[in-house]
């Protein structure tokens, strides 16, 4: 099915698959920990910057209907309320 019809859950699931199957090994280094990675859930194309804004704008400019997913490198969740996030990479 075309990406434009995917639910948020599907977008998340596909982006995480790209992350686990290749992206992770390339990006999880000291320099990147805590930065935001934005992944195109359809193609696996990604970019990294401090807030994710720059990358999201770039990917959207290339493909206005891109379905993007944002993660924080080395952490279990990108965003937390009440201070509830854990670092997963030491």
């Amino acid at each position: 099915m075309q990406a434009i019809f995917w639910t948020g859950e599907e977008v998340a699931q596909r982006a995480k698959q790209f992350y686990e199957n290749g992206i992770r090994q390339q990006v999880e280094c000291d320099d990147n920990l805590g930065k935001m990675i934005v992944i195109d859930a359809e193609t696996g194309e990604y970019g990294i910057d401090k807030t994710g804004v720059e990358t999201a704008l770039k990917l959207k400019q290339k493909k206005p209907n891109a379905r993007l997913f944002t993660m924080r490198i080395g952490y279990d969740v990108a965003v937390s309320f009440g201070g509830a996030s854990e670092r997963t990479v030491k």
Partner: protein
Amino acid sequence: MINGKLIDGKAVVPVIFRLPTQPDFSIDFIIDTGFNDHLTLPPQAVSAMNLPLYSTTLARLADGREALLSIHLATIVWDNREKVVPILASGYKPLLGTALMEGYHLEIDFEDNGLVSLEKISPSIS
């Protein structure tokens, strides 16, 4: 310098929004130091303001549950400078988190109408 007030025990500061083809307007945000991103707005406000959807992300809520939130982008005027920031569609009160306060010194007088201020940390001379 950004100035706000303590209202009902909450530190509140105004944030100016600059949306296309609209005059600037300001929304009061509650400072939340347990929130690690920039801003949240309730989903109804995000749709009323027509903020474009940019991404989806996984968040951990204060009670430990995980939730998928949509990220929208908006141009704000922060400390007299235009800045494009991610806005999370979440909750029912606008929250301002630690990512937006990076590089700032926060001061709060915890009394009715107490002064709340955010001041840019001056670079240390070394």
